[in-house]
């Protein structure tokens, strides 16, 4: 299983591993997921904290959470990398003792998506392969803003200050980047 470290498994294969973790508590399946994601999550944590030991600890917490919550992953709704990112992000938020109110799909006042699930298949907003390809076509200045937001853990106004750019420039880079990603995702229809 050690060969999986740098080899990208397809999203379906990863989703299959999560399913095996959830239903069989398969340590082998978890090891494959761990070998691929743990180095990346550790680097992600190190970018903000700048501390190897803290990064290792936060990565371990993230992966424990993946082990515990594997059954909550819904392959119909999203991709594995996005799901693991949200877990890592939330653990980083907790580490800095910030509060991030979130909506609750179980809430009776919550407004459900009325797009029928058959149509949803054609509009999978997190299609892993499409996103990967679309990200590769983003101009470097737009990609840089997204990386700073997700990895350096700073707001778009802080990014503008860091880059010495007017706020409007950063906003338009963000808008252009997501317009491109969304049209790539919708192009599947």
């Amino acid at each position, binding site marked *: 299983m050690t060969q999986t470290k740098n080899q990208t498994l397809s999203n379906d294969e990863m989703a299959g591993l999560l399913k095996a973790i959830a239903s069989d508590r398969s340590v082998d399946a978890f090891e494959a997921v*761990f070998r691929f994601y743990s180095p990346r999550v550790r680097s992600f944590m190190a970018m903000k904290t700048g501390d190897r030991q803290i990064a290792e600890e936060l990565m371990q917490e993230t992966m424990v959470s993946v082990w*515990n919550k594997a*059954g909550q992953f819904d392959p119909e709704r999203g991709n594995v990398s*996005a799901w693991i990112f949200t877990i*890592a992000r939330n653990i980083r938020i907790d580490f800095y003792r910030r509060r991030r109110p979130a*909506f609750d799909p179980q*809430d009776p006042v919550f407004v459900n998506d009325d797009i029928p699930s058959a149509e949803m298949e054609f509009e999978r907003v*997190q*299609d892993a392969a499409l996103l990967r390809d679309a990200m590769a076509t983003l101009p470097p200045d737009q990609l840089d803003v997204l990386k700073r937001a997700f990895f350096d853990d700073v707001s778009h106004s*802080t990014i503008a200050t860091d880059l010495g750019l007017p706020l409007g420039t950063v906003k338009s880079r963000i808008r252009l980047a997501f317009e491109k990603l969304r049209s790539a995702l919708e192009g599947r229809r």
Partner: protein
Amino acid sequence: MNINHHLSDELLLDYASGNLSEGWSLVVATHMAMCPSCRRRLAAMEGAAGALLEKVDATDVPVDSWERMKQRLEGIRIEEVKQTPAAAPSGATVFPEPLRSYVGADLSTVKWQALGLGAYHLRIPTDDPTTQVRLLRIPAGKPVPEHTHVGRELTLVLAGSFRDGSDLFGRGDIEEADDDLLHTPKASPGEDCICLAVTEAPLKFSSWIVRLIQPILKI
């Protein structure tokens, strides 16, 4: 529900990346509870983050990382995560989560404070010192009372509607305003307009005299 006014990409990105403070996040998340379209945009952003995560260089991997992980797993008992449906508020459908956790389920029990001219507000306490969050109740057909704010302001309509220039904002609609935007919102006739509003916190003056009288003046 027909929502026409949505979150901007930059605000959604700050939320998706975990960089939006509690006050702003409360309004952003409450809008998304009512807006499947912004939730899909959020999911696309998290998808982009996932694609970036796959590309992160793996450096400095401790050799015993997996061994330690495995040991840790042995100590874990899987607690059954039961999705407990939130207590169904009887007939109270104005406040979705996460707002309900802050103000309670029932509109009729909100302890409004008079602002004058028939308008009311309720300050919503948060742990976020950089913002001020409140509920506003504007009488039907009346303008939103004069309010000064520094910097950004987000207003989410929960009941009734208001008109700002040529734009109409109804339940679920969100208005994002900068301090350079001159706006004169006016509640539509027929029903009081209930909004959730967040602004940047008023500047804290350093002078001790000002700090002393600030609570008295309630600035």
